[in-house]
């Protein structure tokens, strides 16, 4: 069986497991109809997202989802802008989860300084990408004008 076929079967199995879990909750959990409906939908979605998340994580561990270039720029070494974006994303996500797990009832308020920090971090990544792409296209254009360029630059010349 092809790899794509295995993925489709895996997804169908996950959906079926979620539906079976939801069915058992709907039948056996005591309470009125509204409570049963809420619990059924809640646990069903919870099981589905958990299975999808675990499937992605298992694929990352087995190497089917390749993360080797997560921090690399195209054809070059590791990028500081990607690295700092990864660190700040993890730190803020972990902090939010920590507070929700500790206090529980509502989503924590996020101060503007933290939003600014994330904005600076993501902007740095975007600007860095822009500089890199601009530099590459500048080099290609320059090479094309000098007659040493690749095929694309030569295609632009009038016949």
């Amino acid at each position: 069986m092809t790899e794509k076929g295995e993925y489709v079967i895996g997804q169908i199995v996950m959906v079926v497991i979620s539906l079976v879990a939801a069915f058992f909750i709907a039948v056996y959990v005591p309470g009125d109809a509204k409570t049963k409906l809420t619990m059924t939908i809640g646990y069903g979605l919870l099981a589905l997202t958990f299975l999808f998340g675990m499937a992605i994580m298992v694929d990352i561990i087995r190497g089917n989802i390749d993360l080797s270039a997560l921090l690399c720029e195209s054809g070059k070494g590791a990028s500081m802008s990607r690295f700092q974006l990864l660190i700040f994303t993890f730190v803020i996500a972990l902090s939010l989860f920590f507070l929700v797990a500790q206090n529980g009832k509502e989503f924590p308020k996020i101060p503007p300084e933290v939003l600014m920090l994330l904005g600076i971090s993501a902007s740095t990544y975007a600007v860095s990408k822009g500089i890199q792409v601009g530099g590459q296209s500048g080099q290609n254009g320059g090479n094309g004008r000098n007659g040493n360029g690749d095929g694309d630059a030569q295609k632009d010349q009038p016949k």
Partner: protein
Amino acid sequence: MPALATAARWEIGILLVGLMVVVVYKIFTGGISLSGLLTAQDSKGNLSFSPARAQMLMATVFTALYYLIQVIESSATDSLPPLPATLVGILGGSQAIYLGGKARSLLFKSK
């Protein structure tokens, strides 16, 4: 209903922490490459140590650790702890230096 919230909390915890552990494990074992993190090409195309990247790494690690400690110390509140404006300014300046250095090296290389 509290049981549903508890289950959701556990699920997010397992997925989030699991993903972080996998990424950090791959970084430490070389599955995610960090080679070239502190080097940059000069105007002649040679790879050399980049002070701009080193200072940005220090500013990033310092800010991240400072914020994690703040979160652990003030875990009883229902809000994320604020960051000092000075620290945000330092981080912004650090990243501006990195971007300026990168733009400059690419500008001189393309000439």
